[in-house]
């Protein structure tokens, strides 16, 4: 018994190890590449231990920009991406929690119709409705603005559904107890629903932040000024240059930098998840 368990453990660890290597190696390569100069990368014999160009590369990427493709330093791009991702995440949480509150706790005419209309938008992601959305955003004069980047991506049903499902699990007696305790609809929302939804909000925040951060098609369409570029577009532009060699060390440094905020969000929010979980365990 003991023998076979040890054997099974070894197999399990081997499988996991292979998985980790497959996932982690490209990331490691990107980090490696950000520590060499262009010549070392291009000659095709990049060593597997970090080089000595890291300071230079990161300084140039963040504050100066790639010389041949775009003059925009990555600092600006990251700020743009950050504003967009935050705007989408926060905006979506606000809109979803309010609409879910309305759908679950208020009896108004066409309530279920409203819910189904929201639900149907699930089948219409930005890519599908991109032309009409572009037209509207353009007509409103929102091209090359943060509002234009954020607003169309907030409108979708995932968050509303998530909060609706969560609100349905809250016992009715809690609402009734609040009523008897003299709390109106808004107080119930503020004092009971929001504190209970914190972990749901955190989950939605993580998903939406990363969704916003990784947007490619929409920012590509509506931003023309390089000062409004997001980092995902920036990487793409660095790789496809017309007349010059791709500055791979800068592109890779940018890619590494682009990974940092989502990773931070996940790490930070994971602590919130765990906190929520631990509290329910108590």
């Amino acid at each position, binding site marked *: 018994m003991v023998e076979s368990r040890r054997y099974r453990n070894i197999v399990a660890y081997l499988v996991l190890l292979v998985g980790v290597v497959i996932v982690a190696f490209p990331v490691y390569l990107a980090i490696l590449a950000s520590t060499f100069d262009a010549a070392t990368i291009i000659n095709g014999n990049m060593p597997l231990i970090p080089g000595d160009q890291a300071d230079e590369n990161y300084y140039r990427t963040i504050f100066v920009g790639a010389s041949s493709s775009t003059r925009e330093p990555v600092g600006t791009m990251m700020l743009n991406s950050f504003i967009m991702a935050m705007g989408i995440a926060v905006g979506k949480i606000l809109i979803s929690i309010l609409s879910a509150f309305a759908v679950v706790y208020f009896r108004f005419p066409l309530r279920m119709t409203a819910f189904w209309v929201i639900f149907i938008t699930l089948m219409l992601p930005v890519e599908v409705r991109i032309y009409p959305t572009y037209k509207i955003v353009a007509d409103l004069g929102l091209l090359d603005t943060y509002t234009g980047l954020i607003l169309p991506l907030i409108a979708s049903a995932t968050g509303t559904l998530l909060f609706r499902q969560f609100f349905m699990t809250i*016992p009715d*007696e*809690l609402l*009734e*107890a609040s*009523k*008897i*305790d*003299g*709390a109106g609809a808004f*107080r119930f929302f503020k*004092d*009971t629903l929001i*504190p*209970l939804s914190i972990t749901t909000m955190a989950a939605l925040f993580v998903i939406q932040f990363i969704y916003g951060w990784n947007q490619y098609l929409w920012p590509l369409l509506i931003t023309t000024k390089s000062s409004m570029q997001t980092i995902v577009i920036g990487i793409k532009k660095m790789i496809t240059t017309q007349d010059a060699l791709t500055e791979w060390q800068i592109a890779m440094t940018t890619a590494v930098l682009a990974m940092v905020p989502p990773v931070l969000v996940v790490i930070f929010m994971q602590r919130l998840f765990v906190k929520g979980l631990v*509290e*329910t365990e*108590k």
Partner: protein
Amino acid sequence: MAGVTLDTVRKVYAGNVEAVKGVSLGIEDGSFCVLVGPSGCGKSTLLRMIAGLETISGGTVKIGDRVVNQIEPADRDIAMVFQNYALYPHMSVYDNMAYGLKNRGTPKDEIEKRVKEAARILAIESFLERKPRALSGGQRQRVAMGRAIVRKPQVFLFDEPLSNLDAKLRVQMRVEIKRLQRALGVTSIYVTHDQVEAMTLSDKLVVMSGGQIEQVGTPSDVYRRPETRFVATFIGSPPMNILPGKVEGPGRVSVGGQMIQVTDMRDGLAPGSAIEVGLRPEDVQAGTGAGFSALTMDVDFVEELGATQLFHGKVAGAEFVVQASTGQIPADTRSLTLSIDPSNVHLFDPQTTKRLGRV
């Protein structure tokens, strides 16, 4: 402090389902009223209408002198204890109790005074800072009651508050609720399906069935003189035995050819007409006695309850149960002669199921 008056209160749900069919009831100031009945009898709906959590389809509900039909739950001056306690999971015990007062704009020091006072009465002072999930069922129950007490309402409403507790704790909390209600003197309405809770807690017992009141009275009234067959078989454990019988004459009925004398029997019942004879398992004795009627019973099996034994069998072809102190009747008895005290016989009309006692 205030009484509660219900006048032909009705509740009709969508689809014309009538859950409460015109209930009229007066609950005196400071009394403990228990609504009891099987599930689906409308008792909880009635309570929720008094609380204001359900709209009232017809009739009026008065708390004190005020008709409250159109008044919000928060303004009815009531407090409610729910079956699952409905404590706010994210608030500490203190905040749970203080929340209702805060919403009413009660000054902070007054809130603190009242919460501390309630916590002292309920012996929950030591965990005021804890969250509800860190408490046991009995402690949560106390917090739920604390939340009701701090408000100093006119009326307490209890919706099966002990159903989620284990049997031992239930007995203990039952006693505490009674003691607390006595001490505070607040009018209380308590809904339960447990007839033991109903009997022990109430000053006024209301037995409901099918959205209507079957009988209102003190627990001993309801036990001694059940007005319908439903009440007779619902109150009392094990339930009353009902035997098919025949009217023989004034004060006399027969069951399977065996004569039974009855003290409480309506005059003018036609001899030969069918009648139902109710006998409580604890009211029949083994053996014969002077002035008592006799019935023979075939015993099928015996249930041991410790202090008492239940003899299950048949009398005149109908199921019959006798409760006797352990050792009074040998457990291997196959046939029993039972003596019936004429004052312990209850008669019911087989058609209307109403009691056929003296008017």
